């Protein structure tokens, strides 16, 4: 049996490891063109800064493929022929498979703005982007980052650390409305301005201006021109499935590979996992989950089903964590989903950025948490959401979910808004 996995990101490598655990003799091939070794994409910013070396972000030792008996094909797949069980590679070679897992991830979304092709315009998603940005940062004096999400704010932070002035263009009224509310977004905005970010909220991005093929500035929706020699576009990612458009593999309107509850595509021997897979969400919307841990979980589930088990992929209660410059962020459950009759409890400790927002339902059961400043244990928060704990009970027990390092100032609830 020949298993072929496209992609050695977190979904692909976890699937390969699981396959090997189930089947010691199977032939397992991994095709990828991005890097020789699997790496932690979420740590790219630390490599840029020189806080970690390139090898530091490889979770496995370099003899991993050899030790696990994986065949590593360094190539890019150009087309898939699902009826002939065949892949055509860019080098001209073909690879036949018995069973295939597509875990090829995403690519940065670009919306065809004029000037996107200029030298000095790029993204910060792939290993190649990292090399590009490192090179550009050596000479850049002033950068514009477009897109108020996680990659955007991380890019702003590392460019500032590299000594570059940064203008941050955000289309929305406040930072990251998909995850934060106005108050939380304002706290992050103040924090960014404190770090000398030239933050422009409610600012559309119209075009990139160039001279002799190089970036010289950016024009906003209002026609204002911001001079710069570097533009990083971070307006989200989309499934990397352009190479599948001609095939008969079913894609959704966003380009995600349609996956059933077993992560199977419309072909019985082809599965998908990670950023490129459009899976059913709790609210019956089908879309990709572009998260590290869901990619890992999907890879494992897909591997089980590839060898013939019948495991169902269910994400369970949402959780995530991040850091906005120095401000830690933890979320669990459903906040910002406008649930029927939801209310929000809000607390902010005096003279700090430590905030708590708890979304609860008309029956007083908690539905979600959004926490800034302190560190929280999402396992505890997720349990409380799953157990539908009452708000009063949760407030009394909140300290049990604290995950701060020792010697942090004592936690105190300080209700401001109800």
């Amino acid at each position: 049996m020949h298993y072929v996995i496209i992609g050695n990101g977190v979904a692909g490598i976890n699937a390969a490891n699981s396959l090997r655990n189930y089947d010691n003799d199977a032939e397992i091939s991994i095709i990828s063109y991005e890097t020789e070794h699997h790496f932690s994409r979420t740590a790219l910013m630390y490599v840029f800064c020189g806080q970690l070396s390139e090898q530091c972000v490889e979770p496995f030792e370099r003899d991993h493929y050899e030790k696990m008996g994986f065949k590593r094909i360094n190539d890019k797949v150009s087309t898939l022929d699902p009826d002939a069980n065949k892949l055509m590679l860019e080098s001209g070679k073909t690879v036949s498979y018995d069973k295939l897992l597509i875990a090829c991830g995403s690519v940065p979304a670009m919306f065809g703005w004029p000037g996107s092709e200029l030298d000095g315009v790029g993204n910060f998603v792939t290993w190649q982007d990292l090399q590009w940005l490192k090179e550009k940062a050596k000479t850049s004096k002033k950068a514009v980052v477009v897109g108020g999400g996680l990659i955007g704010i991380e890019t702003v932070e590392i460019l500032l650390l590299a000594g570059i002035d940064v203008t941050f263009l955000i289309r929305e009224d406040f930072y990251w409305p998909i995850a934060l509310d106005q108050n939380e977004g304002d706290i992050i905005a103040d924090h960014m301005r404190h770090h000398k970010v030239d933050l422009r909220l409610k600012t559309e991005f119209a075009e990139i201006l160039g001279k002799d093929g190089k970036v010289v500035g950016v024009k906003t929706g209002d026609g204002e021109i911001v001079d710069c020699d570097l533009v990083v576009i971070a307006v989200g990612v989309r499934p990397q499935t352009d190479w599948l458009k001609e095939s008969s593999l079913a894609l959704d309107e966003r380009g995600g590979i349609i996956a059933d509850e077993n992560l199977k595509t419309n072909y019985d021997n082809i599965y998908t996992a990670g950023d490129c897979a459009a899976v059913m969400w709790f609210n019956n919307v089908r879309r990709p989950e572009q998260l590290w841990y869901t990619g890992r979980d999907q890879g494992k589930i897909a591997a089980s089903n590839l060898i013939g088990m019948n495991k169902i992929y269910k994400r369970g209660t949402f959780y995530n964590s991040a850091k906005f410059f120095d401000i830690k962020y933890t979320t669990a459950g459903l906040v910002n989903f406008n649930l029927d009759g939801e209310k929000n409890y809000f607390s902010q400790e005096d003279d700090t950025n430590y905030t708590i927002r708890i979304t609860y339902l008309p029956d007083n059961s908690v539905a979600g948490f959004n926490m800034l400043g302190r560190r929280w244990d999402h396992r505890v928060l997720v349990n409380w959401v799953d157990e539908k704990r009452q708000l009063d009970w949760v407030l009394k027990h909140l300290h049990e979910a604290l995950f701060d390092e020792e010697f942090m100032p004592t936690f105190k609830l300080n209700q401001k808004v109800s």
Partner: protein
Amino acid sequence: MQASLMSTYKSPLKSKGMIAWVLSFLLFAFYLLIYFTNIPDSWAHLVGLESKWNLYGVLYTISIVAGGLFFINTHGNSRYQKFRTFTLIFFQIVFAFSIPEIMGMFESKGFNFAKFWPLGIEQFSPEYIFEYPLLIIVYAFVGSLIVAPILTLLYGKRWYCSWVCGCGGLAETAGDPFRQLSSKSVKAWKFEQISIHTVLLLAILSTSLVIINWGLHFENAAGEWVTNHATFD
């Protein structure tokens, strides 16, 4: 992210550049001189110190203080790291350096109250420890056999290695900019697992031999190889 972490893999000093090799060579030469020659004694006299080991103690303490301040500059955004580093500096200045010096002024043998067996392997050598007053003898035994193991059970080995110990202290302060250079391979980890237990075993074995020897009063020719005082000075 801390701006001072930016240089971890970029500065030649922290990533095996030329200057790093020169520094390691100088340190290596210094240790060879201090352990195997008496040349550093004359350096000590120059600055008004009694012997090379006093000089070494002063330099060691300066390294921990200066390295500690650098560490706080890098990791001081965390209250935990701030408290921890100040505690390390405190233990080095007060317990490892000043108290033994002050005891010396009162014509007593110096004792480092922040050291326990088996790191302070001499503390279980009867010939060494019985020269101290009863209170210090009890302190050494209770500290090594009861307090240290219990604290380790409660907090892990960090309570000692990262908060109290002078060896860990130097590694966590002056040594911190270079810690990323250690090998993280599975091989290195396996070696560590084997080596730490081997060292513990050797410590127990040699200490037992010394105690047995003391108990049996082998003081002459046949037993000289285990009773040589110089080993424990």
